[in-house]
């Protein structure tokens, strides 16, 4: 019997208060950003926006976004079709391998390219690195939509006399257009938010210019206004993405699992197909790893400072662990509420904590500087403020993990607990969280390992005197000390590959939109 819900007992206040606090923490930076941007009046804001250099900045960013998105759609769709719908040899292995580039932070990939040919810096280098790093955002949804297609439609088309390749293009690929659109928007949002690749390649896109405005004598108002413009542009993509995500990406009538996909025989085209996937992986994965190994080897004979790297690793783990614990402390009440209660307040709180999902990291980093200067002076450039910035950035990841884990524990268990004499908070502690504990622990690990590779917020807010792995790589790359940068990059790649493993194991409990994350 369908169970309608609404007039149930209300959310416990002891859960609601920390959840609202988490939402306020998530929204605080944006408030200070707008406050800073408008500090010299709206006239100044308008003057800044209508300048030619601002227009060019928007166009440069959008140009990069357009080129990278196009490249990712081409690579991602071809790869997905080859892996899911054809007789490509070793399809399972390709499927896993094609998602691995997501694990390499964009500034690490950019470092391996710019250290090979420094003249690659600029538009070309940024576009190359971002395309090779983010095509999996298209590949994954398209491959999954293709594999869920009902083969019956394709069989009907074949029976109507279409050749297999025509069927693929006219029937299969057309049906997964929503998945292609969703993937493309994810890429666009990622490119707009990326700091590492455009920074390393010194391409004057939003993130890099905002960082420059912050660095060079710190013109806070200009940096804040540009950040607001970036938010406005990103908001368009976020809105489009969430609208697309609401719709089903495929249509299949009737019950039961669809039959397995029928593979189009590649025949003599097999070498061409294999050549394509091999080339993509060679550029996206092979080149960075090999070049990193070469520089690492050179570094061994040159100035290899083990002590510095050890202390950078320590600083990195300390900051990311503090960030992960704070994130989860804020995420648990929000996730537990969102999984169990409906209502405008709960919905508002959950949406607010997703702000880190849509806002570019550089914007949140810059906003946290303003929060630090104006509100939390005592912890400015100290560990707690970095942890707070990580919490704002990674709350979506944490809330998603908690929510998914809590949703897996049946409501009826909580009802039995209530009828046996326990208050809502006692039931949460003794039943719900006990059952959700593995998922929450995995979420904590995921947040921590994602925080390890965070760059922009760490650069702007790091405690005085400390240096993380990402910062070590960044500063050495910027002054052309590529050999010295290699050990930092290698350690980061090793650490960064862990969340990918965790993610593939957790993919069943996490909401799909949390996979991968959007922080460079």
């Amino acid at each position, binding site marked *: *019997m*369908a*169970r*309608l*819900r*609404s*007039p*149930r*007992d209300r959310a416990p206040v002891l859960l609601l208060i920390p959840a609202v606090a988490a939402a306020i923490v998530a929204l605080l930076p944006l408030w200070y950003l707008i406050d800073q941007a408008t500090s010299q009046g709206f006239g100044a804001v308008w003057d800044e926006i209508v300048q030619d250099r601002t227009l060019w900045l928007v166009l440069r960013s959008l140009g990069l976004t357009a080129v990278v998105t196009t490249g990712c759609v081409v690579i991602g769709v071809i790869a997905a079709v080859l892996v899911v719908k054809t007789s490509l040899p070793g399809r399972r292995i390709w499927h896993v391998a094609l998602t691995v580039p997501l694990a390499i932070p964009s500034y690490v990939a950019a470092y391996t390219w710019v250290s090979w040919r420094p003249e690659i810096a600029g538009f070309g280098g940024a576009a190359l690195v971002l395309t090779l790093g983010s095509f999996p955002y298209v590949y994954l949804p398209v491959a999954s939509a293709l594999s869920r297609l009902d083969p019956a439609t394709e069989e009907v088309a074949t029976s109507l006399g279409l050749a297999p390749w025509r069927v693929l293009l006219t029937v299969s690929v057309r049906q997964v257009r929503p998945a292609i659109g969703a993937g493309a928007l994810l890429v666009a949002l990622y490119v707009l938010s990326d700091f590492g690749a455009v920074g390393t390649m010194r391409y004057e896109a939003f993130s890099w210019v905002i960082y420059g405005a912050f660095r060079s004598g710190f013109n806070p108002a200009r940096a804040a206004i540009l950040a607001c413009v970036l938010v406005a542009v990103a908001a368009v993509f976020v809105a489009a993405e969430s609208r697309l995500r609401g719709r089903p990406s495929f249509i299949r009538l009737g019950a039961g699992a669809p039959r397995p996909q029928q593979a189009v025989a590649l025949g003599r085209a097999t070498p061409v197909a294999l050549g394509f996937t091999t080339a993509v992986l060679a550029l996206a994965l092979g080149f960075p790893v090999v070049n990193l190994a070469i520089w690492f080897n050179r570094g061994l004979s040159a100035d290899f400072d083990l002590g510095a790297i050890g202390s950078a690793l320590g600083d990195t783990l300390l900051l990311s662990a503090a960030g992960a614990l704070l994130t989860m402390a804020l995420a648990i009440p929000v996730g537990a509420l969102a999984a169990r209660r409906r209502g405008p307040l709960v919905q508002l709180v959950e949406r607010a904590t997703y702000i880190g999902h849509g806002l570019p990291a550089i914007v949140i980093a810059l906003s946290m500087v303003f929060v630090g200067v104006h509100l939390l002076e005592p912890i400015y450039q100290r560990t707690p403020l970095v942890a707070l910035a990580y919490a704002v950035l990674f709350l979506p990841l944490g809330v998603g993990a908690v929510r998914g884990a809590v949703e897996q524990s*049946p409501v*009826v*268990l909580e*009802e*039995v*607990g*209530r*009828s*046996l*004499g*326990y*208050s*809502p908070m*006692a039931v949460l502690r003794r*039943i719900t969280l*006990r*059952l959700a504990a593995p998922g929450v622990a995995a979420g904590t690990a995921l947040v921590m390992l994602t925080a390890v590779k965070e760059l922009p917020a760490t650069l702007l807010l790091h405690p005085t005197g400390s240096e993380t792995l990402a910062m070590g790589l960044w500063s050495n790359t910027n002054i052309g000390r590529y050999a010295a940068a290699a050990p930092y990059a290698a350690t980061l790649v090793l650490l960064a590959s862990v969340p990918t493993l965790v993610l593939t194991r957790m993919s069943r409990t996490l909401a799909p939109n949390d996979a991968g994350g959007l922080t460079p």
Partner: protein
Amino acid sequence: MSALAIRDLHLAYGSTVVLDGLDLTVANGEVVSVLGPSGCGKTTLLRVIAGFERPSGGSVTIGDVAVAGPGLWVPPERRRLGIVPQEGALFPHLDVGDNVGFGLARRQTHRDRDARIAEALELVGLGGYERRRPDQLSGGQQQRVALARALAPEPSIVLLDEPFSALDSGLRAQLRDEVRRVLAIAGATALIVTHDQEEALSMADAVAVLDQGRVAQIADPVTLYRQPATLSVAKFVGDAVVLSGERHGALLTTALGELVDATPASDAITGPVTVVVRPEQIIIATDTARAGANDAATGVRATVVCSTFFGRDASVQLRLADGTLTTARFGGRDVLVAGEQVTVRVEGSAVAFTR
């Protein structure tokens, strides 16, 4: 003092009315089943009593404590009742003993608690199962642990929500007897929600039939089956043969002949009525059987339309003299064939509803 008293209960989700002026009283130690088609509001009623839903009107009193009423709502944890959900819903992170002991007051000593757990498990026939994990138990055992968990804190009333629906039919009948026995030994007051008529009739002291958000009739199983208060109750509880007829005092004239009204109206009203008899009341006699028995010609003539064989008996569709179609059970060794002429009569009394 009754164990449970519900007065004029209302509950609506938006414009969907689920409970619409429901009244129900359960006496101490009584086992009452709530029977109704899906969507009649029976699960919602249980959830309101347990405190998982707030009624929009009316009152609920458990023992002598009002738990829901105008401006009053006692949360589930302070209602002192036990619930047994559909699939047991044992806590997967606790062993059987801790499941059963979950609701026992923490101030009890370990020895008291362990003794009470052992006692409750013994009661449901699972003595010594304390250290088993829920996933090591069969479906029936899980359901019995769930019952022990609900009974352990000695609640004032136990609510069972379709407790056997997840089990296969053999196990179901066995567990039904078992639960009935356990509830009797424990002297527990219980409310069992079910859509299964057999379950409702066989387990309870009284059955409340829910229809459109209110209690259409509450009665002991025999009365409910033999003297249903409304036509819809008659149709819902058991199979019913529905005929149109005329009432003349206590006599009912129908296509099946003159029948006796089981609940004759106090005054000798006459007029059109709808008459209900149970298929097993209709006795079919073949012409050869009647000739052999030298039977007097009682009953009316009918033609066999078709016969569906079920093994121990057959369901026969008959066309009566006036063209009315009716169903009857036929348990004889003969096989009826379509077109055969038979004589039918009604055994016992019928129920009539004024049209």
